[in-house]
C-alpha cells in the first residue's frame, strides 16, 4: 500500500462521484461520514450561561449526576492516545519517511514488460545468446550424470503430477504445477549420482531488493520470485575474459518510441538499500537457481512465455547484482569474478532455462562491457497429457498419459541443478 502512487490509487477507485458508484454502492462520502440512519445525534447546544463573559458557570460535574438548575458541564475532548488498527489511516505519501522526489521504477513479480525479453535486456545491459552454454549442455549429455531409469522416473513424475496426486479426475494447474516442480527437484536431489550436499531449497518467502541506475532512471527489482536454490560455493563463470571483452562492441537494442520503463511500477516511496533476503552468516549465501512458476488456472492470469522470460532475466539479474554488491562493494565497476545465477521458469508443461552472468555493475552508461545471458526457451516436457482415455467408436485412440514426451528437457533441468557441483 505504501508503495502505491497517487495515480495508481485513483485508477483503482470507483468510477463516478455523483450518486451511486458502479456496483450500486453508496458514495465515498457516505462511508467517511456515516450513512444517515447510523449517524449519532448531535450533542445539545451549551447552556446560555457560557455566553456571559467573565462568569464561571456552576455545573454538576462534581456531583457526578444530573441536577436540574445547574449548568451542563463542557469537558475537554478526550484523546485516547492510540488508534485501533481498524481506524488507522496511512499518512499521505509526502510524509512517508521513505518518500523521495526522484521516481523509481519497480519490477515486482506481477509486472509484465511490454517488449518482453528485449526490454529486460536493455534494462539490465545484457547480451542475449540463444541456447544454453556448452558447459551445461555437456553436463546434460554426460551419461555419468544420469539417474538410473531416468525416463521412467520422469514419466512417473508427470503421471503423478498431472493425474495421480489428487482425488479429482483432472487436477488443476494450481495444484499440478508446484507438484511437478517439487517432484523434479526431489528426483534430482535424491537420485543424482554426484553426491554433494552443497545446496538447500528455499520456500518462497525471501524478499529480494536491488536498485540500480540506468541512464538517469532508477530501477529496482523488489519482491519474491518463488522457490530459490542457494549454494555454499559460487557458480564458476562461464564466458571467458575474451568473450566478456568482446561484448563491448555489442549495441543494446532500443525500441523507440516505447519507453524502457513501460510496465514497471512508478513509485516515490522506496528503499534504496540492497537486500538479498538473508542475514549475514547464512551457510548457503550464493544464489544458484530460481524456480519461477506460472500456475494460475486461467490463461489470461498467466504470463506469456516472453513475459515469463523477461521476469526470469530481471530476477536473476537482481539476485546477481545484490550478491555482487555484497561481495565487492557498492561502487560501479567491471567484475573480476563474474557472478552467475540460473533460472528455470515453467507453467507445468513448457520450460524456459536461463543462465545469467553478471560481468559489470556499471549500468548507467550504454557502452562498455555487457552482461551475458544464455536463454533456452519453450522446451516442452510433454506436448499434452490425456487424463481420460480418448475413445472413438469403442476403440481407445489415445491412452491415458503424456504425448510427445521429450526426455531432453529433464536432462537440461538436471544439468542446471548439477552445475557448479560436478
Amino acid at each position, binding site marked *: 500500500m505504501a508503495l502505491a502512487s497517487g495515480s495508481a490509487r485513483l485508477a483503482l477507485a470507483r468510477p463516478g462521484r455523483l450518486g451511486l458508484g458502479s456496483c450500486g454502492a453508496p458514495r465515498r462520502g457516505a462511508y467517511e461520514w456515516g450513512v444517515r440512519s447510523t449517524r449519532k445525534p448531535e450533542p445539545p447546544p451549551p447552556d446560555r450561561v457560557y455566553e456571559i463573559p467573565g462568569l464561571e458557570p456552576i455545573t454538576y460535574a462534581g456531583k457526578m449526576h444530573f441536577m436540574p438548575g445547574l449548568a451542563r458541564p463542557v469537558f475537554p475532548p478526550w484523546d485516547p492516545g492510540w488508534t485501533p488498527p481498524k481506524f488507522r489511516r496511512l499518512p499521505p505519501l509526502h510524509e512517508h519517511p521513505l518518500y523521495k522526489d526522484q521516481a523509481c521504477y519497480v519490477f515486482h513479480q506481477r509486472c509484465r514488460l511490454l517488449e518482453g525479453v528485449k526490454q529486460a535486456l536493455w534494462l539490465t545491459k545484457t547480451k542475449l545468446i540463444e541456447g544454453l552454454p556448452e558447459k551445461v549442455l555437456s553436463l546434460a549429455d554426460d551419461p555419468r550424470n544420469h539417474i538410473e531409469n531416468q525416463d521412467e522416473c520422469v514419466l*512417473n513424475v508427470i*503421471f*503423478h503430477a498431472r*493425474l*495421480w*496426486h*489428487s*482425488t479429482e479426475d483432472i487436477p488443476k494447474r494450481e495444484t499440478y504445477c508446484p507438484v511437478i516442480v*517439487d*517432484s523434479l527437484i*526431489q528426483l534430482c*536431489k*535424491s*537420485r543424482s549420482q554426484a*553426491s554433494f*550436499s552443497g545446496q*538447500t*531449497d*528455499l*520456500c518462497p*518467502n*525471501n*524478499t529480494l531488493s536491488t536498485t540500480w541506475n540506468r541512464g538517469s532512471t532508477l530501477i529496482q527489482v523488489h519482491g519474491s520470485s518463488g522457490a530459490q536454490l542457494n549454494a555454499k560455493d559460487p557458480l564458476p563463470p562461464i564466458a571467458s575474459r575474451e568473450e566478456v571483452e568482446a561484448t563491448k562492441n555489442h549495441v543494446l537494442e532500443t525500441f523507440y518510441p516505447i519507453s524502457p520503463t513501460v510496465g514497471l511500477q512508478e513509485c516515490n516511496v522506496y528503499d534504496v538499500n540492497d*537486500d538479498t*533476503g*538473508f*542475514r549475514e*552468516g*547464512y*551457510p548457503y549465501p550464493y544464489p544458484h537457481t530460481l524456480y519461477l512458476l506460472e500456475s494460475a488456472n486461467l490463461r489470461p492470469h498467466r504470463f506469456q512465455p516472453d513475459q515469463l522470460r523477461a521476469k526470469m532475466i530481471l530476477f536473476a539479474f537482481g539476485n546477481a547484482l545484490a550478491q555482487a554488491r555484497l561481495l565487492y562493494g557498492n561502487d560501479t565497476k567491471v567484475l573480476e569474478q563474474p557472478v552467475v545465477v540460473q533460472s528455470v521458469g515453467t507453467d507445468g508443461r513448457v520450460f524456459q532455462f536461463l543462465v545469467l552472468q553478471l560481468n559489470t555493475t556499471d549500468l548507467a552508461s550504454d557502452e562498455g562491457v555487457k552482461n551475458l545471458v544464455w536463454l533456452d526457451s519453450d522446451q516442452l516436457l510433454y506436448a499434452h497429457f490425456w487424463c481420460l482415455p480418448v475413445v472413438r467408436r469403442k476403440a481407445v485412440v489415445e491412452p491415458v498419459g503424456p504425448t510427445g514426451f521429450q526426455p531432453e528437457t529433464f536432462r537440461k533441468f538436471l544439468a542446471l541443478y548439477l552445475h557448479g557441483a560436478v
Partner: protein
Amino acid sequence: MAAARCWRLVLRGPGLSLHTAAGAAVTAPEVTGPDVAAAPVARYPPLVASLTADSKAARQRRVERWQATVHAAKSVDEKLRILTKMQFMKYVVYPQTFALNADRWYQSFTKTVFLSGLPPPPPPAKPDTEPAPALDVAALRAAACDCLLQEHFFLRRKKRVPLYLEREAIASPFLDQLVASLTGLLSARNPALAAAALDCKRPVHFYWLRGEEIIPRGHRKGRVDALRYQINDKPHNQIRISKQLPEFVPLDYSVPVEVPVMNCKPDKLPLFKRQYENTIFIGTKTADPHCYGHTQFHLLPDKLKRERLLKQNCANQIEVVFRANAIASLFAWTGAQAMYQGFWSEADVTRPFVSQGVITDGKYFSFFCYQLNTLALTAQADQNNPRKNICWGTQKVTVTWNRCLS
C-alpha cells in the same frame, strides 16, 4: 453367468452359502465324468431364502450377493467403487481434535492397542551381507540446525510474523525443509528412501464400518444399522515407497493389552454425522507404483498447542492429542494402503501393513509406529477375529535452540 460365478466362488474357499454349494453340485457332473456316482445329483433346485422378502434371511442373502460382487470385481478401482458408492450418514473423525481422551475413543473405533515405547528392533542382519554405512549423526544434526536457523533467524521477512501466524509461517516451512534434507541425507543408507516419493499436504482419506447401533428415529427406527466412519486427513508431509516396510511383529501376535471398550455412542466424544462422498485415498491414485507408506509428518494446529491446553487445565491431554492424531492418521493411511491392495473387511489382510508417523507442534516431536493386522472391523467380520492393530508411541522429544547451537 450364474454357473461361472458359482465356479469362481467354489474356488475361493470356505464360507459358501447354500446357493453356491448346491449350484456346484448341479454343475459338477458336466466336468467329472467317471465320478458321477460319487457326487450326488440334486433333483430339485436349491432351497434358498427369497431375495425380495422383508425378512432377515432375505436381507442376509442380499448382503451376501453384494459381497459377492465385491469379491468378483476385476480391479481395485472397481472394488473401491462398489464399497464406497452408497452414501449414508457417517461419523466424521478428525485426527487433530480437542476432545478429551480422544485416543481411547479412537482406539475403540479402529481396534488398536497402544504400547508406549518403540517396537522391538528387527533381527540383526545376516553376517554375509555387507554392513550398512555408519550413521553420520553429526551431519544429520547440522542439517536439522541449518533448517531451524534458516526459518527462525536467517530468512529476512517483510514484516514480523504475528504470533497467531507463527506456526504456518515458520514451523511449516521448517518441517518441509527438515523432511527434504533428512530424506536426502539418509538416502545413501536406505535405497528405498532414494527412490521414495515425497508428498506435501496431499489428502489422505479412509472410510470404514465398525460396530452397530439401533437407529433412534426416522422411518428406519428400531432397526440395526452399522456405524460408518470417515477420516479426511491432510498430513504435512509423507514419504511413500514402492516396497512394503517389513513387519514389526507377526500378523497374529497376541498383545496382552486390551482394546478399550467405550460404553457410550460416539456422539459423546463429540463426533458428528454427515453424509458426503466416501473416499479412500493414500495420497495418490491406485495406478502409482509408490503405493506403500513409509512415514507421515504432522504439524499440530494452533488450537491444540501446549500453552492453550495448560491454560485450560488440561495438562494430561497434551499427550492425548499426539496419540489420537497418530492413531487416527496412521490407521487411515495403512487401511487405505491395504484397500489399494484389494483387502477389505470380508477379505482380511494376509500380511501386516506398517507405517510410521512423526507428530510435532514445531518444538516437540513424538514418534509413532503403526502395524495394521486386521481390516475386519464390521460386526459380521469381527465376530471371531482375535487380531488387533498395534500402535507404538514415544513421549515428546524437544528440539531446542541450546542443543542446536552446541
